């Protein structure tokens, strides 16, 4: 068992999978010789050769399109989109093609691809290195969306995603690549090496998709979050001494509805947190589901804490970020509701 940060855990997952399955190939901008701008693929080209790990032209359309074709051939491609903000030129290949190949061919062709992409803000990346576009993909039938919140989960979920025979969007919360950021941007972040979830086996293991993780049990209210926001929420809860149940969704589609329902039935209160812009964010779907399925258990309105409905600004990054104050206010409101 080693201590790994999230990048190392992802690298380890890729390494394991490339070793186990000759059909796993990786492609993306700067991922080959250089090992990726965040170093997620470091060392893998050297180890597995440049026809299995290679750089691509700067064409997200081509990266996804070629991956779909490789998947149809029988490979299991793991394309990287350098930043989630740059996924849109590949949107048509994801929505119209990857997501529908199995359906329209009645199972004759499939797109077992895993699109890895760093997402989210908090690194002063400005409008085009900070976005959280996950909700769009959750609207597309045929795509799965996975978001880890720890090195341990990142590895297990990534392996399960690669082994999955459906197309998976695997969004990596880049703000927590190095440690579990709790929202206090002016304080140093504890590195993953000091955190239990930084214990990551070197060997293959998987965490099944569609299973949430209850990271904290509690009775007062249920917090639904994923990625970076799990840690921010945990921090606030600790600070405020609320006995909250915190559910790290891990997979948005398919969603672990049972875990959610059970928790809400117990607590009767629900806070949803994500960094993406609010309107039509995935929080809306969560809120609708909770309301539909647990209406008679709800003791207060479900609250959403989210990024604002603006582009991610550069200098006012921390005013934008749904940090402890915004979460704290919502918690108050729910607990008083």
């Amino acid at each position, binding site marked *: 068992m080693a201590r790994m940060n999230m990048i190392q855990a992802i690298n380890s997952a890729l390494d394991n999978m490339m070793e186990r399955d000759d059909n796993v190939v990786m492609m993306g901008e700067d991922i080959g010789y250089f090992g990726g701008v965040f170093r997620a693929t470091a060392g893998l080209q050297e180890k597995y050769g440049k026809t299995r790990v290679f750089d691509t032209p700067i064409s997200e*359309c081509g990266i996804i*399109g*070629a991956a779909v074709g490789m998947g149809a051939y029988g490979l299991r491609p793991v394309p990287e989109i350098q930043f989630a903000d740059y996924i849109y030129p590949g949107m048509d290949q994801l929505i119209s093609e990857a997501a529908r190949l199995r359906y329209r061919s009645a199972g004759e062709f499939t797109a077992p691809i895993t699109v890895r992409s760093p997402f989210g803000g908090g690194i002063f990346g400005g409008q085009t290195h900070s976005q959280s576009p996950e909700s769009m993909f959750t609207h597309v039938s045929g795509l*799965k969306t996975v978001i880890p919140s720890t090195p341990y989960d990142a590895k297990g979920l990534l392996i399960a995603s690669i082994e999955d025979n459906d197309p998976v969007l695997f969004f990596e919360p880049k703000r927590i690549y190095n440690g579990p950021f709790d929202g206090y941007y002016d304080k140093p972040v504890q590195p993953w090496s000091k955190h239990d979830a930084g214990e990551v086996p070197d060997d293959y293991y998987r965490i099944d998709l569609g299973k949430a993780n209850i990271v904290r049990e509690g009775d007062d209210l249920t917090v639904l979050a994923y990625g970076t926001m799990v840690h921010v929420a945990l921090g606030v809860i600790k600070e405020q001494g609320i006995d909250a149940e915190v559910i790290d969704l891990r997979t948005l589609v398919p969603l672990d509805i049972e875990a959610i329902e059970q928790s809400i039935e117990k607590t009767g209160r629900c806070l949803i947190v994500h960094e993406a812009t609010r309107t039509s964010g995935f929080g809306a779907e969560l809120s609708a589901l909770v309301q539909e399925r647990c209406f008679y258990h709800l003791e207060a309105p479900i609250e959403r804490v989210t990024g604002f409905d603006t582009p991610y600004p550069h200098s006012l990054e921390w005013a934008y970020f749904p940090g402890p104050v915004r979460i704290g206010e919502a918690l108050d409101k729910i607990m008083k509701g």
Partner: protein
Amino acid sequence: MTGESAKTNLPPLSLHVPEPRSRPGDPVDFSDIIVPNAGKQPRPDENADPKDMMDLSYDLVRVLDEKGAAVGPWDPKLNEKQLLKMLRDMALTRAFDERLYRAQRQGKTSFYMKCRGEEATSIAPAMALDSEDMVFPSYRQQGILISRGYPLVEMVNQIYSNKGDKLKGRQLPIMYCSRRLNFFTISGNLATQYPQAVGWAMASAIKGDSRIAAVWCGEGSTAESDFHAAMTFGTVYNAPCIFNVVNNQWAISSFSGFAGAERTTFAARAIGYGMAGLRVDGNDPLAVYAATQWAAQRARTNQGPTLIEHFTYRAEGHSTSDDPSAYRSSDEATEWPLGDPIERLKTHMIGLGIWDEERHAAMDEEVATEVKAATKEAEKNGILGHGLHQPFETMFEDVFEELPWHLREQSEQAIREREIKWPE
């Protein structure tokens, strides 16, 4: 000027908006189309450097001359059996189109698309390729399926979206798919198959396989982003892939000028990427065969991709939803200077003494009968909207490999609704 405003006395700028040769009512004039003599185009080695064969992107590879003789270095020298198969498959494709077009008009399905006049651009490549090579067709390559021996009744089942439809009624008519015949699932989104074909070809190369990929799109579709992505990936990785651009002059109501044809050929796109390019008489099945064979040999020997522009004409409407008389002169089809592919091959074969008018007429009847029998057979499985569709639960299958809870709930909902609507 030194970066300062220094207005010169130039005329105002003006926007150029392309105009086709003819609009309804206009006389047709194809005199701008240069038809070089058959047999005059050089045939480079399959391992020629693209730099040394640029002229072929502006020329027109032709084998059948005006009298129907096969001439010049591109003559693929097919044997009688091959010629017969080529002719019959083209005739069968046309007969199929005729009948299924009528079926749509009779309300048996929602939609149909013919390939009349363009049969050579799918039948000949299908023959020149290996049956294990993967094809990524657009919606106008029904000829490939027919050439590869897909049962007509399966095609009709798909068109009728009936209970026999292997695609479970999910796809619009003619959006076929056959893994067995290495025929990729057709997309309704133009040109998306282009980078997919390159990816497939790259995968084949990664695996040290010997199978190559071939992909088709219309000239209008070359404007799509995916076309460029495919050309770029194809040239960067030297992918074993044949890019077919079927230039049938029209994209629904938009003539090829809206894809750039006023400025250069579509084969010339290849030059832009340093790729081999061929411009071929798309109504000359032997030329198309030879070009495909050349490109396939190149791809198989790691010489990389080839772009083939098939210069042809869409002799009928875009689809059953279209009325071409609203935007082009109806004389264009008959005036098309490159003739009809079936007629040209027929003349060739008669010239060779292996064919005659009687046999041709008999063949036409035979294929019509074959098609008719297939439609009758398929109708037993139902026609669109007449109840004999797939069970409701199939609607939720294949979205994912396994049915997640939300689709299970929705499936139950759909079945409940069916019971409410048709309680019997």
